[in-house]
């Protein structure tokens, strides 16, 4: 991922500001959004930065639905585009996420999770949107959901989000939490060449041969920007290879299956995790976001106390990294899943567990963080 280290400029940034650095490094040139705590710094920072980026466009829209619409439009016109929001705004965006998934429009959506349903705890952390990120929009659809645990990871995972969106022609959701978004840390600002940057494939065949939703080797058809001479139809209706609406069972099935397959075949590329001392672990903590930071310390302290503890940090939440989780559930006598909700990712862990080991959850929903000692108590 990282090329040989060059001299980097350092900066003392919020997680939200680091997202902007990552986005610009990934080639993002379009942002549309609507202010909402605790994601607003992303928007404010974009408003300052994008006018300096060649062809950069920043738009404040009338609501989150419109923001997603504008991002989809910009992406269809060939831009790398993103939006950011939080809880209630995320719910408003769900309809358009379905549209982006159906039309295979690449985009990045950052959702900074806060506490509670509804207005809830707008300035406190939460992780209650995990299942919504996977299943919030209607109907069967593939999606990629990522997370970041600290400020440097905000840069890295935003770049990854853009790369996945472009590579797989899909909306990618990056879940942060209020703690990660509002923690200020010193980071190295990304320089060109630090990250491998992926841009969507565009067609090379003559326009009259081009079929916008055709089956391809990777399952991802090339995508030309609107206005480049490839005229075709984009619709949220189920469509055939040419993009025209269809309800023929065989065409509907082929479309949906390809949309799933294009993600499912590349689990190895998409499912990112970090193993910390899991090789010999008898107890494993499975965590993501700000909770992973507490877990890191807890696991270290447990090791010092003589418990063979390990940590699996999930950077990709969906598609759920079963290939990494399952072996640990088989080899450990206890798995602990701490999260700032009543048990959302632990559902996935339990689903994968199939009775192999004991899965214990730590759930906190009072707007406070899960502390290392809280985790330590469960594992040591």
């Amino acid at each position, binding site marked *: 991922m990282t090329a040989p280290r060059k001299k980097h400029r350092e900066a003392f940034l919020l997680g939200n500001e680091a997202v902007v650095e990552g986005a610009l490094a990934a080639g993002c040139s*379009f942002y*549309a959004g609507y202010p909402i705590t605790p994601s607003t710094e992303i928007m404010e920072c974009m408003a300052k930065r994008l*006018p*300096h980026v060649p062809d*950069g*466009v920043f*738009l404040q*829209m*009338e*609501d989150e*639905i*419109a*923001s*997603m*619409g*504008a*991002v*989809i*439009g*910009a*992406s*269809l*016109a*060939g*831009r790398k*585009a993103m939006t950011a929001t939080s809880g209630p705004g995320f719910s408003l965006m769900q*309809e*358009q996420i379905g*549209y982006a998934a159906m039309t295979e429009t690449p985009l990045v959506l950052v959702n900074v999770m806060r506490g509670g349903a509804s207005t809830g705890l707008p300035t406190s952390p939460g992780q209650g949107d995990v299942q919504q990120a996977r299943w919030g929009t209607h109907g069967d659809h593939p999606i990629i959901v990522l997370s970041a645990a600290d400020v440097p990871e905000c840069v890295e995972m935003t770049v990854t989000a853009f790369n996945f969106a472009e590579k797989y022609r899909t909306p990618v959701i990056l879940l942060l939490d209020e703690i990660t978004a509002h923690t200020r840390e010193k980071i190295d600002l990304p320089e060109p060449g630090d990250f491998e940057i992926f841009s969507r494939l565009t067609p090379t065949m003559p326009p009259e041969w081009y079929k916008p939703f055709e089956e391809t080797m990777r399952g991802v058809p090339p995508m030309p*920007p*609107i*206005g*480049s*001479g490839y*005229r*075709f*139809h*984009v*619709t*949220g*209706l189920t469509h055939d290879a*040419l993009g*025209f*609406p269809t309800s023929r069972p065989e065409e509907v099935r082929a479309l949906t299956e390809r949309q799933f397959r294009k993600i499912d075949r590349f689990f190895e590329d998409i499912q990112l995790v970090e193993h910390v001392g899991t090789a010999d672990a008898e107890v494993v903590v499975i965590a993501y976001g700000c909770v992973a930071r507490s877990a890191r310390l807890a696991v270290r302290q447990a090791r010092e106390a003589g418990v063979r503890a390990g940590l699996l940090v999930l950077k990709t939440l969906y598609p759920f990294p079963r290939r990494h989780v399952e072996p640990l559930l088989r080899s450990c006598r206890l798995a602990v899943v701490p999260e700032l909700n009543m048990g959302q990712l632990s559902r996935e862990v339990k689903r994968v567990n199939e009775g192999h080991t004991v899965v214990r959850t730590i759930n906190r929903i009072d707007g406070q963080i899960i502390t290392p000692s809280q985790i330590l108590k469960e594992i040591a």
Partner: protein
Amino acid sequence: MAEITQLIHKYLRHNKKFPLVFCPGCGHGIVLGSLVRSVHALGLNKDDVVIVAGIGCSGRIAAYVDFNTVHTTHGRALTVATGIKMANPKLTVIAVMGDGDAFSIGGNHLIHAARRNIGVTALVLNNFIYGMTGGQCSSTTPEGAYSHTSPMGQLESAFDIVELTKAAGAAGVSRGTVYHVKELDALVADALSRPGFNLVEALTPCFTQYGRGNGFKSAVEMFRWLKDSCLPIERFEKLEDRTGKIPLGSFVRRDIPGLETRYAAMCEGVRRKKGGAA
């Protein structure tokens, strides 16, 4: 005259299923014709024209024409159109919407598109009803009119699309009908060639879902009603008794550069200042 039909055929996607999905006598096909003739009259390249449609009968128009076409979600056509126009200002972006689409579910987007004057042409096909879902009242259904969700007559009053869009700040607002096709052609072409947000309201009868329940005997009778009740704004203003009459024509023509133009100017200013300081 044969060239009119031949011309349209040049712009249709013949690998798409024809005839149009619309009911017999539905005016939407006529509006489509108007749109094609206007694009042709302005000499626009097919590659540079984008049709962004919403959901509803009007939304189906997009698939038939050989432009860049995007059939979006219900009410959100203008948001996607805004994204496309800002991303590539060289494109001619046309949002085709129905009355429910543009003024009920998408009403917020419409007033904001007008306020920010994004350089998009909005073509609102007003048939006073939700046609595709089977005939429910919309925000333009006239007071007292019957529909499946106003079986005792619509209690609420209707939006005046022209007045609303005008008040929201649009650069251009006009109204035509599918009976007055030549005038409609001119209004659409004018809207397409002007900067800023320009809206054309096209009255297009829906006999199946609206006419039948409101005392019309046929689609033809609805066209007759358009012929008899609509008149140019100049003549309308001289009328003493305006009841039941609908004015047609161009209501506002303000010279306001599109948001994309103002944005580009702002960015250039920003970069020049930075360059000068360095």
